[in-house]
């Protein structure tokens, strides 16, 4: 069965650079969630989209922005990167804004040097 695809899997950027993370949800899933997991921490909700509209917003820095496109894939754009942005970024998708279960991608490991 198709799963949530995230790209790239690994990314190394320098401070003050920009990064773009991509998420391709499971086919027919219309809701995407982004989470950030720092080293030794639990995942923290960043932002979500339902039917291409932002549905909820968590602790996402102003330097970050995201959107969901017409094909339901989503991109997380991160500018002016800081060392503290180094983390594992997960995307999850579900069917319906309050679907029973959200399925996680394998994550993108971002390292800022």
């Amino acid at each position, binding site marked *: 069965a198709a799963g949530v695809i995230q790209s790239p899997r690994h990314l190394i950027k320098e401070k003050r650079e920009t990064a773009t993370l991509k998420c391709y949800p499971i086919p027919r899933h219309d*809701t995407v969630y982004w989470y950030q*997991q720092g080293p030794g921490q*639990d995942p923290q*909700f960043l932002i*979500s989209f*339902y039917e291409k509209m932002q549905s*909820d917003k968590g602790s996402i820095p102003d330097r970050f922005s995201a959107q969901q496109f017409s094909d339901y894939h989503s991109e997380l754009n991160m500018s002016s990167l800081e060392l503290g942005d180094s983390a594992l970024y997960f995307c999850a998708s579900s069917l319906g804004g*309050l679907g029973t279960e959200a399925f996680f991608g394998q994550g993108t490991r971002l390292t800022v040097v």
Partner: protein
Amino acid sequence: AQTVTQSQPEMSVQEAETVTLSCTYDTSESDYYLFWYKQPPSRQMILVIRQEAYKQQNATENRFSVNFQKAAKSFSLKISDSQLGDAAMYFCAYRGRSYNQGGKLIFGQGTELSVKP
């Protein structure tokens, strides 16, 4: 705001034995979901088991079962016949069902489970 608390940063179990991981949560909602996720060294988030708050019956998935105490806001995970492959970080998570909660997951701090051969 909803919160999830896992008070056991680390747990250890002997292979083939049973272990219980604890989780408490706080919410003013009456309808929600609770989950246990497993995160092995690969860092993949794997759903272990799901409980719907309106269901009184405790969920069971093979060797994994939960003890859901709604009034006490407690949601523990029992792993029976522990296997080496069960070694991982386990996260308890809450998900509201009302539209103003948006469907996001709220995670506990995690419990690192080690399995001794």
